[in-house]
């Protein structure tokens, strides 16, 4: 599954990023923000139109806005336990 398909509130870990599919500067910026392999992320908000673009994700204690195209380049695996906790909340 890629990050753009993650439901709001679901926590996941980035397992692979298709860096080559991103513009070089954007890839560099994402890395600088800590969005790379191994990072634990959560989708916190989404836009309203056009496939609910953009997407706000939480990484650590930061919230970062990015587009669906960036999220689509990131393979994630859902962290089950936390996902269930999120549902309880």
């Amino acid at each position, binding site marked *: 599954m890629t990050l753009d398909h993650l439901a709001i509130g679901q926590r996941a870990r980035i397992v692979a990023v298709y860096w080559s599919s991103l*513009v070089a*500067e*954007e890839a*560099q*910026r*994402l*890395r*600088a*923000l*800590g969005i*790379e392999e191994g990072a634990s992320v959560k989708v*916190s*908000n*989404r*836009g*309203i*139109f*056009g496939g*609910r*673009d*953009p997407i*706000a994700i*939480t*990484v*650590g*204690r*930061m*919230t*970062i*806005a*990015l*587009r669906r*195209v*960036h999220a689509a380049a990131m393979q994630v695996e859902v962290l089950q336990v936390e996902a269930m906790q999120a549902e309880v909340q």
Partner: protein
Amino acid sequence: MSKPRKVALVGNPNAGKSALFNSLTGARQKIANYPGVTVERKSGRFVLPTGEPVEMTDLPGSYSLDPTSPDEEVTSKVVRGLFPGEAVPDVLVVVLDASNLEQHLVFAQEILALGKPTVIALNMLDLAERDGLVLDPALLEQELGVAVVPTVAVRRKGLDRLAEAIASAPRREAGAGQTQLTATERRVAAHAMAQGAILSETPRHRLHARIDRLLLDPWLGPLFLFALLFVIFQAVFAWATPFADALEAGVVVLSDMASAALPPGLLRDFITQGMFAGVGSVVVFLPQIVILFAFILFMEASGYMARAAFLMDRMMAGVGLSGRSFIPLLSSFACAIPGIMATRSIADPKDRLTTILIAPLMTCSARLPVYAVIIAAFIPSRTVGAGIGLQGLVLFTLYVAGIIGAMVVALVLRSSVTKGAASGFIMELPKYQMPRLGDLLIGLWQRAWIFLRRAGTIIFMVTVILWLLLSFPRAAEGESQVDASFAGKMANGLAVVVEPIGFNRDMALALIPAMAAREVAVSSLATTYAVDAGNDEQAQALALGDRLKTQWTLPMALSFLAWFVFAPQCLSTIAVARRETNGWKWPLFMLAYLFGLAYIFAGITYWSAIALGL
């Protein structure tokens, strides 16, 4: 006197650097540009406990020394002493957001590896505690090997200790005790250090996540944003009135005093009709500009501005831009100059160029004086529906016209002259924060001062030149002074061109000096009608608006408003665009397309109004 010690503030964006800078230096700040680039250089002075003076610069926020924007490039070069003409900082102060250590320590390690005397300001500890995070600065100090001072810049906490640490920052050596790490290694180390410094962490629903649930809600979010924008425009028009009236009365008193003190003649005319009528009529718009900037600064400092960018991103993407363009464009509502300068945060060059080209379509505060005078004179002051004033509504419409124009132009440009790959949008949404009043006041003062300085220099000069053009050659007996003057003759030529769009000679005349700054259109109308009224005391006593009403029809007034929605009447904007695009090609293109649009839309407005029988 010894040379002041040079201290530079560095850190990630949103670490609270500017608040710390304001707390340390107070209002004694100098704002300029770094030579060759248009990145703002902020510096200020303060005195260390040792009595030693310090010159502090607030470097642009960066995520890394490996730059991805012109801003980050300045920071990267200055801290390494590679920026030509910029002194190498003696001490670096790294500002960290206590609640976001894991991220901010990555950049901090890069700075520490430079081996310069460094002090860490562990900032916004209060917000971290609000989020249930308790940290031990001493543990962090051990890990990093430099002084770590806990600060809460907005409450002026920890500033004395920070100053002491700056005074006694020991010498360090490059790469001391650590090898050059890769970005990933730094991230791993940052994670370990951040975890190590945490004494306790309560998983608490963070306040900003809860606010975001409302303000970034797909439905409530945009609704709130548009309501806020509407309130801003109503406020700019309504709240400023008493202050503007007071300023206007003040100008009249001064003008009368000068008039009484001086013998009749050219000098008196120059001072009352030229100086006071001209500069005075622009200065009275200071309250509106201050109110507009107050809202913009509040949105920036509270963290809402980035949310606005998030909400607007999809819409901007529709015309080939990104949410990042929203902030420069919103700033352009105050003035296109800071707006165009703010485009440097847009990484994509085509995106940036498009934003620069459409920035002048955002209704800047300099248009307000023009709009305000004409709306007040021609649009009746009544309400349409609950609490919505017709005058405010017309003003809102003018703003919307500019926005729609800009969007259409962006769309056209993105598929023609600035064609290129769709741009991205990656942006940190900072924590919400209650802005400190002092910080807002410093920002407001800086903006107001820039406006007043413009009024005192460019606008003053233009007004004087215009008065001279209007007053010479002197009219013969029985001839109107305006008709006889140089300016009147110049306007006669221009009037032929603008006649098809409903402009009379006086309007054509106002367009000439308005090239220097739009708001001068008002002062030039004021000067024209003041000169024209001559010594006819009854005509003199009429306010400018009332005088306009006797000279213009409603379609003419509407046409004039439509002209100002589009017309590129500000040489400073063109100059800034030239500097930002490194050449004359784009500013000239901007001039041409904007004048074209202005002419077409003023014409459409005029003839539609005539057809509707207005």
